[in-house]
């Protein structure tokens, strides 16, 4: 699709050749700066602490796997991964379903208050999580959902909604009104109309929303950090921070913990990086 229409080599001007040479340098350099730290992290995780301290650049000399098993056990990473999966999946499904429903109602149904509600959601993009932490903490302890899974999932959903509704609305707005009118004439209710027509038609934006929301939920840190004191409820980022953040006596363990917590997302990236790009790109589009 992109413009790979280029002038044959022998006709290129000096400027164009400079561009090509410069591009190679810039891009190879930039890619190395991005990737080498991650490769270093991965390789170092396979080395015992004493070796790392002796030479930080060294490569693993044998297939040394102890760091991983020890980090997994001591860091209780298994529980944290399960927690993270649970929070991210549940919160993502709720967020995406609700945002599509809201996106439909706010762009296609004839209520006067729609514009006001939509503006309120868009303003939410500016709100820092930290602005609500104290009242939210007080509120959750008042209704007794502090230190519970639901008390973690609800804020995930609430803070996922503004962007998801923004994205869902911009897609659903372009679904032709005639389809909706036809269904209404057939006597279908708004809710069944949403399930029968809008949801199936929104599949492309739904995929983007699911992946994008999942990504931000997976990496969410502050809510679990502040709203829970029970270590059994920790998500992976909070658990890794507690375990590896100040771990100075064994670098091998530290890196193994980082690698373990990064691998699920690398697999995720491997399968979905196109959709993730699309999510970011769609967010920055102006209608």
């Amino acid at each position, binding site marked *: *699709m*992109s*413009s*790979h*229409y*280029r002038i044959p080599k022998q006709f290129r001007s000096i*400027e164009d050749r400079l*561009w*090509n040479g410069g*591009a*190679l340098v*810039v*891009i190879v350099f*930039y*890619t190395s700066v*991005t990737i080498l730290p*991650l490769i*270093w992290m991965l390789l170092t995780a396979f080395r015992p602490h004493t070796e790392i301290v002796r030479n*930080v650049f060294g490569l693993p000399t044998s297939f040394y796997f102890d760091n991983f098993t020890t980090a997994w056990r001591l860091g209780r990473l298994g529980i944290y991964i399960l927690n993270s999966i649970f929070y991210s999946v549940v919160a993502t499904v709720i967020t995406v379903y*609700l*945002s599509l*429903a*809201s996106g439909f*109602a*706010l762009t296609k149904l004839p209520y006067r208050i729609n514009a006001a*509600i939509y503006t309120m*959601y868009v303003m*939410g993009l*500016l709100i*820092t999580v*930290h*602005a*609500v*932490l104290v*009242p939210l903490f*007080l*509120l959750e302890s008042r209704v007794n959902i502090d230190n519970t899974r639901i008390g973690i999932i609800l804020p995930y*959903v609430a803070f996922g*909604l503004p962007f998801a509704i923004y994205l869902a609305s911009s897609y659903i707005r372009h679904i032709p009104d005639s389809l909706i009118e036809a269904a209404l004439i057939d006597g279908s209710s*708004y*809710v069944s109309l*949403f399930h029968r027509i809008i949801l199936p038609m929104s599949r492309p934006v739904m995929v983007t929303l699911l992946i994008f929301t999942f990504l931000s939920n*997976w*990496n969410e*840190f502050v809510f679990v950090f*502040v709203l829970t004191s029970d270590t059994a409820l920790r998500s992976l980022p909070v658990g*890794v921070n507690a375990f*590896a*953040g100040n771990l100075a006596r064994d*670098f091998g363990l530290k890196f193994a913990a*980082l690698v373990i917590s990064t691998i699920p997302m690398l697999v995720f*990236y491997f399968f979905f*990086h196109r959709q993730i*790009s*699309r999510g*970011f*790109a769609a967010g*920055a*589009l*102006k209608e």
Partner: protein
Amino acid sequence: MVLVLPALAIYLSIVVFPVIFSLATSFLKWDGLTTPSFTGLQHYREIFADPVFRLGLRNNILIVIVSLFGQIPIGFLVAYMLYRRMVRGSSFYQAMIFLPVVISPIVVAILWNQIFSPSGVFTEFIRLLTKNPRFVFRIFENRTFAIVPVLFVILWFYTGIYMVIFVANMQKITPSVIESAIIDGARESQILLRVVLPSMINVIFTTALFAVAGSLKSFDLIFAMTGGGPSHYTEVIAIFMYINTFKYYNYGYGSAVSVIIISISLLLILVLRIVSRFFEKRYE
């Protein structure tokens, strides 16, 4: 309305109500337990006089500057090079540069801390280059420059996102426009400045909006990397707010800080809007 209500109920109770609550408590002196007392604008006056807040604000402004004048231009240039297929294997490079986006800010922070630490790769590398085996990275002890490594990591972490946004939107430019420019003898720099850049103005400003809002909210990465330390040198407003609220239990003070964060982002976004109007007119 059944379709809107569940989302609205969650949003109102978890975002809107607490924000209003914060606004109200920002005028109160309150530790969360005893009866609050009204102090009016007292907190706001104290905050702007607080040297730690000023340092945090300065650091936040630096982050905004790095996003606007570092991430966006670098992201744009790399995107253009990839879009024009100046190197072979564009999609491979694109996938690699975008990769940090999935990594948790916490992991990134711990990793880079280790790289800059006395036994880290960066330090060793400088030791080899300068042939000084005792070199230690001392920048964190410097009040003015302690933030620089943090800014570098922010640049490293987020530029890929801007690159991807730009590539995706460049691909929407009709290919024939560029083809005809080439046939007319346009040089590469002319294609960049006269064809691609003008059609991307909207996208650039929209990403700038997100960059400003995101920069002022930055917390996780810095919190896990330095915690705002040493002695507040790398503090940003969000961390300043966090410490005042959850360490000193000064809820009113902390709330006033979060009101300030929101006001500043509204203000900056307003300024950006005006600047973007100006540019849109120029390019029409």
